[in-house]
């Protein structure tokens, strides 16, 4: 039996096809080598220019003006005033350093925990109901952050929250996690860790999958101790994917906003105010557009630096693959 074999498209012999087609002038126009690439790119370029290039230029320009939407006065040129005022603003520096502490703690813990759990899940191929289990494990990172923030607020609630019920059951005092200056940062950090550790598990599993089987078997035959196996075989091959994961997570943690907005709104005081939230409050509460534009430009430069690092790592692997 030959079975039901399908081809993609009816294949006519070349001469017949050429004879049947009499290219019109438009087809000939499309056939020119330089036209097609530009034409295909055009829609994306239009999107890019209208929604990125123009707004970004606007942003760059506005950074040099004093412009408040609420004052009703036209923008006034102030030169570098906004930038110097940001640099001299102790609040901004505090928020920036808080953001970096948040990023380092969150990404560090998520990476360590994620790698540990990823190694644990390495041999899970024959786990009964694996797909459901992995869905449950990976769910936190795709959930709507606002929804996660909302229901964590209920869990953290000092009176009705399930967490405080557990704490009271052990005989301790209830804690209003999100309302107290000493606990709010940790509470938000914990939610971020809950949300994003699964991502590092995913990346660890991907990294482990990229390790050649033969080398693992060789290491097993050689009876390499586990830490050497990890360092010499697994990390050697998997470090690239892990690095991409850590970078993506760093960039994402730097942007954290929805969660904060929903859980603490930067409070109490400014203990959970990360820099994205600072910008939000200065731009859309105080409507201080000139100052905010300058801060946005600074954040843009930071993100470009992150992206450049990401691309560098990406190409570094390609170069290494070519050299090998």
């Amino acid at each position, binding site marked *: 039996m030959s079975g039901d074999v399908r081809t993609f498209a009816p294949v006519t012999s070349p001469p017949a096809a050429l004879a049947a087609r009499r290219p019109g002038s438009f087809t000939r126009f499309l056939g020119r080598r330089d036209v097609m690439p530009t034409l295909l*790119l055009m829609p994306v370029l239009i999107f890019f220019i209208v929604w990125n290039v123009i707004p*970004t230029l606007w942003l760059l320009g506005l950074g040099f003006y004093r412009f408040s939407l609420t004052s009703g006065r036209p923008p006034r040129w102030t030169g570098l005033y906004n930038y110097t005022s940001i640099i001299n603003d102790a609040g901004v520096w505090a928020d920036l350093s808080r953001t970096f502490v948040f990023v380092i703690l969150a990404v560090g813990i998520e990476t360590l925990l994620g790698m540990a759990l990823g190694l644990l899940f390495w041999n899970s191929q024959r786990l009964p109901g694996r797909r459901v289990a992995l869905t449950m494990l990976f769910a*936190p990172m*795709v959930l709507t952050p606002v929804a996660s923030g909302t229901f964590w607020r209920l869990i953290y609630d000092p009176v009705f929250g399930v967490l405080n019920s557990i704490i009271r059951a052990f005989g301790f005092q209830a804690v209003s996690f999100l309302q107290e200056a000493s606990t709010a940062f940790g509470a938000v950090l914990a939610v971020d860790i809950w949300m994003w550790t699964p991502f590092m598990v*995913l990346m660890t599993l991907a990294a482990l999958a990229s390790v050649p089987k033969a080398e693992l078997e060789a290491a097993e035959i050689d009876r390499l101790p586990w830490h050497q196996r990890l360092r010499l075989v697994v990390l050697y091959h998997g470090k690239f994917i892990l690095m991409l994961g850590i970078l993506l997570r760093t960039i994402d943690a730097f942007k954290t906003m*929805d969660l904060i907005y929903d859980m603490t709104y930067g409070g109490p005081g400014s203990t959970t105010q990360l820099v994205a939230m600072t910008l939000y409050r200065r*731009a859309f509460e105080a409507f201080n557009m000139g100052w905010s534009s300058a801060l946005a430009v600074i954040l843009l430069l930071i993100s470009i630096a992150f992206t450049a690092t990401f691309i560098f790592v990406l190409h570094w692997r390609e170069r290494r693959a070519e050299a090998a």
Partner: protein
Amino acid sequence: MKTGWRQHVYHAVLWLVALIFFAPVLWIVLSSFKTADQILAVPPKLIFRPTFANYVRLFSGQGFLHQLFNSFFLSISAVLIAVAVSFLAAFSFSRFRPAGTNFLMFLLLSIRMLPGSAAILPVYLMYVGFGWKDSYYGMILFYAMFSIPFSVWILKGFIDGVSPRFDETGVVNGASWLRIIFRTILPQVMPGVIAASIFNFIFVWNEFLFDYIIGGIRTSNIPVALSTGLYSNGGVDWTFISALTTTYILPPILAVYFFQRYLLVGMTFGTVRGEV
């Protein structure tokens, strides 16, 4: 080799880990079937008679249905536009490598890496200037723009994986470029198209800040309504909120279940491929 009870213990541990991560979600799902008294009971009740009153109330509210429609409408239309446009661009980037390809790909990615409030600020000023605020086309086009970088990155990776010999064969046999793109390349990169669509959908579905700032009453989606406390009359109505969140997080969870193969590609901009 692990056999017998050791394997069982191992599997039990794995399930335990998965359950720990899912526990907060389960708690909300449970809460959504409780009455107001049960939800606020101290100590919390694990066993109770489920009620569907919260869902009945949820789906009979006009505001909710309108915002749910917005969530669906905005995400689906933005994704359709973004994926279609990005596929063409990705093909061009992959095959013709026009001057500045690397630079453009870099710029596209850095937009996605920018904190949301910095990205939306100039667009907000522009929309206020043009009067595009709170309009469906303004929202859809902006979301499409924000989904493009991700889609271009994913799709370019996939098209790079298809040998140019397919194009050459097509050219030799007299096929037009459009025919080559849509009949030869597209079927082979379908996984990429699916991954890009799913993850852009989840992104727009979950998005809150942009909708809040450049949208308005007409175009606000569920996350906006949820975080601006549209549903709280005085105190927070936890039964309503938990029914709402349970409904809203269902699509992303189902997406992870049904498209688990694409999770890795989707979470890494297509830079890491494979399955877990």
